[in-house]
């Protein structure tokens, strides 16, 4: 059901945890499934230096947060604003249709975190 990559991120989440000195921070919850996400960002010179996160919910939302934290490191903030849920899903080797909204939740919270920065 889940790809190897997705399961690897779920089992070995990258960059999980908080960033006490974050430049941007946001939380979000998917009202339908109840999954929750919190993202912290450290940004300098219009680029993301570090992303950390906490998530509660399904395996895809954890894996999506994890893979996103790797994807955005060093990324310019405009590019982050344009990041699409599909790219996150692709980076995970696909997300089953029923769970695609997990990537959307990450995108949403990430955009908010950038704005607050």
């Amino acid at each position, binding site marked *: 059901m*889940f790809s190897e990559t997705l*399961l690897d991120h*779920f*089992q070995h*989440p990258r960059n*999980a945890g908080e960033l006490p000195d974050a430049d941007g921070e946001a*939380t979000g919850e998917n009202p*339908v*499934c*109840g*999954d*929750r*996400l*919190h993202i912290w960002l450290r940004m300098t010179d219009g680029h993301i230096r570090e992303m950390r996160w*906490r*998530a*509660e*919910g*399904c*395996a895809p*939302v*954890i894996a999506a947060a994890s893979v996103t934290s790797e994807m955005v490191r060093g990324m310019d903030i405009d590019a982050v604003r344009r990041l699409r849920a599909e790219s996150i899903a692709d980076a995970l080797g696909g997300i089953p249709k*029923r769970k695609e909204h997990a990537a959307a939740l990450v995108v949403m919270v990430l955009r908010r975190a950038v704005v607050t920065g």
Partner: protein
Amino acid sequence: MPDLIYLDHAATTRLRPEVRAAMAPFLDDLYANPSSVYRVAQTVRSKLDVARDAVARALGASPSEIIFTSGATESNNAAIKGVALAGQRRHLVTTAIEHHSVLHPMEELAARWGFDLTVVAVGADGRVAPAAIESALRPDTALVSVMWANNEIGTLQPIEEIGEILRARRIPFHVDAVQAVNYLPINLATAPIDLLSLSAHKIYGPKGSGLLYIRRGTSFFPLLTGGGQERNRRAGTENVAGIMGFAEALGLCSSDRPVAAARARRLRDRLLEELQSRIRDLRVNGSLHDRLPNNLNVTIPGCHSESLLVALDLAGVVASSGSACTSGSLDPSHVLLALGLSESEARSSLRLTLGRENTETEMVRAAETIAGAASRLRRLAPV
């Protein structure tokens, strides 16, 4: 499933070897249609009769009161629609924690056929009070359906008391005993029950085979019509192998019951103990006392069951968050919500249902695995 610890016996069970052996001849040589007149077909017919007699005896029923179906979903649909549509009365009663194969037919009768439906609430312990059923009754109540044991939390309902109330008022009483029959003796000669559903695949028999008991004298309108099989109450060429397997499974289930129940309870209590010693804030859902001995349903706050189940699966432990047939859905369990849990609590719940293959060692290993996964996931969760 070689190294797996299978803790999902409420979803389905593995065929017992004796059951497979009982089915085998009917998937081979004994293929004749039992309705045909020639001798080899009559041999099949008489083996079916023997199976029906054995099933009836195991349940304290008469053979003519048993119809074989394609599973408990069909049995529940047939019982509810069959009794409701056979009469003039227009009010139905059930409980909030029934299986969807009871709730949906009830809701259908309400939405499409003009029935009034009363869904009786349960207490925080997952049990319905006989008085609550009694006060739901009306002069035109056509049928009451209450499950004997719940499939998610294993709680037992006071079937005898409810049945006595209904019998005094001559209201037909349907009982979904799918989960109960493994561990509770069922004697329909004395139990005040008019219709009862069972499913083979929950008792180490084959999928696609079930039965409906219909007490003699109960007005009933068949769901499937056609050939005259099952005394005109369920048409269709008999699933002979499935019926033979079911009869064998029920026979074994009846004779093993006391030992199996004691064993399941010992394992279940050990599992709970191991979990409680490892996981803080673990809460058991539903009464522990009036409960199937093989069922455990716990809430682990801060640990969503969707990801917990994936982590457990990767570690070789399979379990579920509720009934199998809704596992794909995003909705929290209607049973847990009916107990008063919040949506978030309901989403952080785990159902562990034991069976005959489980061992004490597995209980310890499973508890370690669950505790490890839960603590990892809790550490990932936002505060």
